[in-house]
């Protein structure tokens, strides 16, 4: 089995690190070698955040070799665009349509780039855009966006449904488990 490379991208505070924890745990439970990598420190301060997750029979580098990302799993639209060059030509994308204004946009000095979804789709046909925040609000908690997105991602990966549920049970605080399981199920409905 070749190594599969998933790059998670988004903005500090969106729950990217928890999502990459859950994903890595699923890989480990499936009996695979797995490495994940991210930069802490600035992550809570609204900066651009990425996390690399790689799994397969034997994984060496925890950083995904440039240009070898199989799936870009992104939580914010502008951040999705930022990391497109790291994808393989036939790479796939699962991305939230959530837009978060970076400082220059918030200050009115720059506009948030227009028609990003179209640009993404024109380069990568295999793109799923998830209305993550809307779905999370329907489920009943805006903070479950990351779990909704994980649900959508799970459709692309060949892991047993039960592994995802076990990983969520292990990683999510007990009082938030039920709503996160709902969010995950709602995410799996996105095709």
């Amino acid at each position: 089995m070749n190594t599969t490379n998933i790059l998670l991208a988004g903005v500090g505070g969106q729950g990217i690190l928890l999502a990459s924890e859950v994903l890595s745990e699923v890989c480990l439970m499936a009996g695979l070698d797995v490495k994940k990598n991210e930069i802490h420190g600035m992550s809570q301060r609204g900066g651009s955040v990425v996390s690399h997750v790689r799994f397969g029979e034997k994984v060496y580098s925890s950083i995904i070799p440039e240009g070898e990302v199989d799936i870009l799993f992104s939580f914010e639209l502008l951040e999705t665009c930022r990391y497109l060059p790291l994808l393989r030509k036939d790479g796939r994308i699962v991305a939230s349509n959530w837009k978060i204004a970076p400082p220059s946009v918030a200050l009115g000095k720059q506009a948030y780039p227009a028609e990003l979804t179209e640009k993404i789709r024109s380069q990568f046909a295999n793109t799923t855009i998830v209305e993550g925040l809307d779905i999370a609000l329907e489920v009943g908690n805006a903070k479950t966006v990351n779990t909704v997105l994980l649900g959508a991602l799970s459709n692309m990966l060949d892991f047993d449904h039960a592994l995802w549920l076990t990983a969520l049970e292990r990683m999510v605080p007990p009082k938030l488990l039920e709503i996160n399981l709902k969010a995950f199920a709602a995410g799996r409905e996105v095709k």
Partner: protein
Amino acid sequence: MNKVLLSGNEAIARGTYEAGALVACAYPGTPSTEILENMVQYKEVDSSWAPNEKVALEVGIGACFGGARALVTMKHVGVNVAADPLFTLTYTGVRGGLVLVTADDPELHSSQNEQDNRNYAKFAKVPMFEPADSQEALDYTKLSFEVSEQFDTPVLLRSTTRISHSKSAVVLGERPQQIPTPSLKRDPAKLVMLPGNARRRHYDVEERVLRLEEWSCDQPFNRIEKGKGEVGVITSGVSYQYVKEVLPDADVLKLGMVYPLPKRLIRDFAANYKTLYVVEELDPFIEEQVRAMGIDVIGKDKLPICGELTPGRVAKALFGSDLPAENTADLPQRPPNMCPGCPHRGVFMELNRAKAYVTGDIGCYTLGFMPPLSAMDTCVCMGASIGNATGISKVLSAEEQRKVVAVIGDSTFLHTGINGLMDMAYNKSTATVIILDNRITAMTGRQENPTSGFTLADQPTYRVDMEQLCKAVGVEHVKVIDPYDIALTRKTVREEMARAELSVIITTRPCMLVPRDNLERRNPLYVDHELCTGCKACLRLGCPAITWDEQSKKSNVDKIICVGCKVCKQTCGFDAFQEIEA
């Protein structure tokens, strides 16, 4: 075998526990911080935050002199602070094992420089291990304690950001049932480093390095992985992983110990290849020593010295492979920012408005450099703001002197700033110092310090009285203010800048991210568009919760992230910011 996913830092903590250590001490610093945070779960180990790295190492040394195994951790620049005890500890040697973790930060993800601390191993003549993944981080930590005791030496364990913050599968071991009981044991010839004793110990140090070098040639942590036999590579640490990606067919000499180098092993390995690479991040540390042995290698003539390596960067350097271009076209950057409700924000807005020349320091507030606050003119190292302000004031005219303001956080002030303040009072400096007291070491992820009132293990403890401390070193004018009160902040900053004497302003407000300090309920705000004139005064704060709406030409507040600090309300001349009643 049950495998768990651990970060390099979690694995070092686990290895310390499994090694039977009794003490762990550190000052927080990215990327090392999580090691001590994870030590707390192991109740058998006394784990604590020290006010700085020098104290942390001295505490570790004391424990080791008592016969206990001790772990001390810090980021790369922290070793500069702890270098003084380190360079003599190498002479005394140890009683219980002592392991000093240096977590280096190639690429400067969260640091002020990119120094390569492998040089400290050679400089201090201390053996250094370098793990390449989390399993090795655990194994080498245990090994380091053993080597420390076997060779009577402190041991350096070097991690880098990509080791500390990467997770990989680890098999856990157990803590030994029997741990030697610490005791007092006098040994002045070894532990009292007066010249007569130290002179003799220096010979022991030199002899120890030679013994370690010979011993390490036959140890499994320095291993040869056979490939197709055409190309040889010498590498260590995270660089090993990139070599395996980029040169899968090469024969690899993977060094687990990077100082001293196993010269016999290297010589035997190198003899087999016409093409021999040394792949290492940052300095040509291994390369220069191998070249000094008369062996020709390909190294920093191709590989970069600056920045971290990645698989793509190694491939580009060695084979000219293309790297994908960064997608910078028209995409706004997203730099980090102070959090909504950060008590530092208003202070920097006022410093900007007062046109202060700000000598800055290391912490969240270094983000005061970013626009629109744009109120930081220097940032060198922990505690430097105060000495820098003193020095620059010495050489300026009386009028320009008044513009100089040192800005420093509580943790950084207690780390090494306090010495600078003593100097200011003693030598009659006239600058202004602002201590941003949020009661926590925030930048590294909210670690307790002597202003918090709590320990690493969350136990209540004494809280340093900052006002009394400043007065005790001789500062006559000490003002304590609430930085959420913008009018008072403005008035105080201007008054103290104008004063031709030393003064200290302490701004006290807990970090918004510490739940125990933020029990008071606050409602988020909204902008009443009937009242907003679109003057953009509130945008000067650079609060992430306030955004400009180009269509209506008015400001908006994102109620999901607004914490209701009301600083923006005070910047508005039209009372447009209103509370959303709960």
